[in-house]
């Protein structure tokens, strides 16, 4: 790990679902540090706890025990309203399914967090920022479309715009390309790469090595614990194949 400041950290993070019989321990004492500006990829087999880890460190779910710190602020002790403010102002999310509000057009969906965060006098600035984001990610032409009128790739890029609308310090992505074909996957991952280059910290869960190669560091989960981690350096288009081979070999060794 290089010497950049740690922005997101978990300590002894555990999560147990008590609704099952017997209770299911999904995360077992995970210690994790994410550097500011880092692109961390979380991999693992199905049911290893990848998504649970993502939602636990992002405050969407309450861990059973352990702590999470974002930019030096302890999150697990925050109340729901405070935690929501942190998500609104410091975090962005991209999901496998776009999960847009069907009653709003594409632009309003992207505007939503920006308007929510903006004070009355900051509304115009928020709108300008979102319009610029839509231009940047090629969404502007479908801005007033309904969400059923645009393609999956466009929707996922719109998701990225929405996640960035509040200028977060960390972007969380849960299988963002899981529902896309290969060409749309490349399109969306290019957008992630661009966001990362802009300095945003990204934590992404994926089971696709072709997507994971976009990250800088990959951690591997098994049965709720981090069993391995590997630095793979910054992604460049011309080294993509070589990085993927290295990653696949590493994953094979781990039994992926």
């Amino acid at each position, binding site marked *: 790990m290089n010497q950049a400041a740690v922005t997101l950290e978990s300590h002894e993070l555990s999560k147990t679902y008590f609704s099952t019989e017997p209770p299911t321990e999904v995360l077992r004492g995970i210690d994790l540090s994410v550097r500011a500006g880092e692109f961390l990829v979380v991999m693992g087999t199905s049911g290893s706890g990848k998504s649970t880890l993502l939602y636990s460190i992002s405050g969407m779910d309450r861990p059973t025990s352990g702590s999470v710190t974002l930019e030096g602020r302890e999150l697990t002790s925050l109340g729901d309203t405070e935690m929501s403010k942190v*998500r609104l102002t410091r975090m962005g999310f991209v999901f496998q399914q776009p999960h847009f509000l069907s009653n709003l057009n594409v632009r309003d969906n992207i505007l939503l967090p920006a308007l929510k965060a903006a004070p009355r006098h900051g509304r115009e600035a928020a709108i300008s920022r979102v319009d610029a984001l839509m231009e940047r990610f090629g969404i502007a032409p479908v801005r007033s479309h309904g969400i059923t009128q645009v393609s999956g790739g466009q929707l996922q890029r719109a998701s990225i715009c929405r996640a960035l609308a509040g200028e977060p310090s960390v972007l969380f992505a849960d299988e963002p390309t899981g529902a896309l074909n290969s060409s749309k996957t490349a399109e969306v991952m290019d957008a992630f790469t661009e966001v990362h280059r802009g300095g945003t910290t990204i934590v992404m869960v994926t089971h696709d090595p072709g997507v994971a190669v976009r990250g800088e560091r990959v951690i591997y989960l098994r049965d709720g614990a981090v069993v391995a981690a590997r630095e793979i350096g910054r992604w460049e288009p011309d080294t993509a194949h070589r990085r993927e081979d290295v990653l696949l070999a590493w994953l094979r060794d781990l039994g992926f």
Partner: protein
Amino acid sequence: MENEERLYLRYAYNDLVKNKGINAALVVTLVLSAFLMATGSMVLERLAGSISRLSEQGKPPDLLQMHKGEYDPAALTRFAADHESEIDAWLVEEMLGYDSASLSWSRPGTGETGDLAASRIDNLFVTQNTEFDFLVDRTGAVVEPAAGEVYVPVLYQKQYGLTTGDVLTIRTASGPHQLEVRGEVKDAQMGASLSPSSRFLIHPEDFEALGRAGGATPEIIVEYRLAAGGDANAMQTAYEGAGGLPTNGQVVTGPQLRIISMIGDGLVAFALVFVSLVLIAIALLNLRFVIRGTLEDEVHEIGAMKAIGIPDREISRLYLTKYSILAVVGCVVGGLLAIIAANLLTQGIQTNYAQAPVGVWTFLVPLIALAAVYLIVVGICRGVLRGVRRIEVVNALVHGSTLDEKQAARRARQRARWVRRTGLASSSGAGVNRRLALLDLRAEGRAWVLLPVVFGLTAVLITLPANMVSTFEDPRFVTYMGVPERDLRADVQFQEDVDGVKDRLVAAMADDDRLTDVRSYAYVDYTADSEDGPARLRVEVGNRPDDEGIRFSQGGLPRDGQIALSVLNADKYGVGVGDELTIHDGDKPITVQVSGIYQDITSGGQTAKMSGEVTEGAAAYTVFADLAGDLADGGADPGGIADEYDEQFPTAGVKPTQEYVRETMAVLTDSMRGAAWVALVFGLGVVVLITSLFLKLRLARDRSTMGVLSAIGFAAQELVGQVRTKTLLAVAAGTAAGVVFAATAGQSLASAALTAVQLGITDLTFIPNPWLVYVLYPLLLLGAGYFGVAVLTSGVRRADKSEWIRR
């Protein structure tokens, strides 16, 4: 059992277990609907049976004429001879009437004593008849009291707890006359809760002794049993047209007796049926919502079943089995509960009337009612499940949509137009929550419509009976009784010296500084031609001020040469405002023009008014007076003054007009109040249930939206706030619509119902209690809605938000 049947049942069982909350709410709604429908129908069947049974035992007359004063027995014999073929039997029953204050009781065993002064009904002492119109005991046997014994009306037995061995003391002009209570009697003629009088049965020796003792008002009832197929109304017309017969009193036909009994004691049952009909409507809307939701939720499974070749009919049956089971459970449990409730509700009826015989209809009526509930429920389910046919495999499996291509394209176009028109950019900060809630409510209006409809129906359900109660209880209701809004009223009627009593009363009132504007109206009997021939028309004649304050539904006050008729009389004589009517004063024909038509529920709704002055020779008089200015301004109670006059003129029936209204309407008002309470309790229970059920399904459907909003940065409190805003807006809209409907169309419904029972009211204008129906009830409904939403959203804060997205 076929394998297929087992599969359906297993599927239904699994679903019932999986969705316990929703299915339990559905079952409760169905149980309530079935329960009220079965209870209402059982009570009506028992009531009709009880009345018929008592009618068989007591053999009441088909036509009766009450009379006070002299009469010519020979004229009655001639009339009977003239109508021999129509009359099966007839009799003249002599009665001695006592004021309630003249009757007291004591219990020798315990030394307890009391009087019947609080009772407002006439007390008539009679001997047992020999041919018909019998007073019977609890077993239906014709009772023959021994000398010194009395059988009291069931009403008094219930009201004052009079039991065998008690001593009833009658205050006569020659001192007290004591009789031993031997039991109670049921009276087919005067047993109804609405009946203004009741009969005590004594031995002929005691009857003679009381007659000699003085202090009683002698009265007779001329009674006729008609030959099979006889028409009581035609006989009444013939009787009234015959001339020379006793007519100084009420005239009642057999069918009217039965209507009076059914209205007084069956109103709650009718109200239960009405409540159950509204509940069934709610249950059906609810089922439709749940089934459609289920089809949407399980569209993938349905698509898969279709894909492997299971026919649509079989898929529908899979679901229908579950709803059939729910409907059967609802009907069985509702029916069983109804047996208990109907038994409790009919206890009073069986005491008043007779033990209804248990026959095939006793079982068939509630079974038919329950079968109707079951068939309607299953029929609606079958109709909604036809939607399975329209589901296309590809759309179901790929897009998870129940819509076919055309529907999906149309929906997408509509949605696209919608999102282009709406915008979020004008909101910011917390205002975004409100904006999102409103947008969702507008866009998903079809899904949310269940709540306003249910709350609207419930608002009607609880407001209508409350409006009727407040109208019946309002001082202004007096205008529906064909009388002006005056402070005091006296009825000088059915006695020997009518003119003398009236003159002395009017003189005393005129001299009283506390009273002003004393007016007397005389009741003069004419005959007029009705559709069935000449009939008696009793007309109230008086010197009428312009501002008399009677509410005319058409036209206005009668001037010289004019007559105003009650709605039922206008109908009876087939005339409208402006028409001419020929009335006969003896043999002298007088042609009068109808000046107006008003509503009146007194005297069987058959009254008339003319202008003029008749000071003597009338059949009866009504005297009105107002409190003098300073007393009225000071809010003085006319009751005290009325009591003074009542003591001074015991036969004049002086009372505050409002008390007269209360007494006349007491039974109807009490029954309606009971119905209003039933409607309120069940209505509130149902709206809480439906709100909870709706939100449970709605929240399940909105999970992913809530998940994404949570991820974006909306706190659980804000998400709950959005749901509450939407719910309360839907509830408020429905409640407001319901209250408005109840006040407008509901008024017409109530008028139609009152017209149907021939009470004399055809156009009722509600006099609502605004605090109750426009403030308290809407608040209760909003509170019920809020309670439902609070319960259902209480778990939102604790939930792991990612669950909403990941499922």
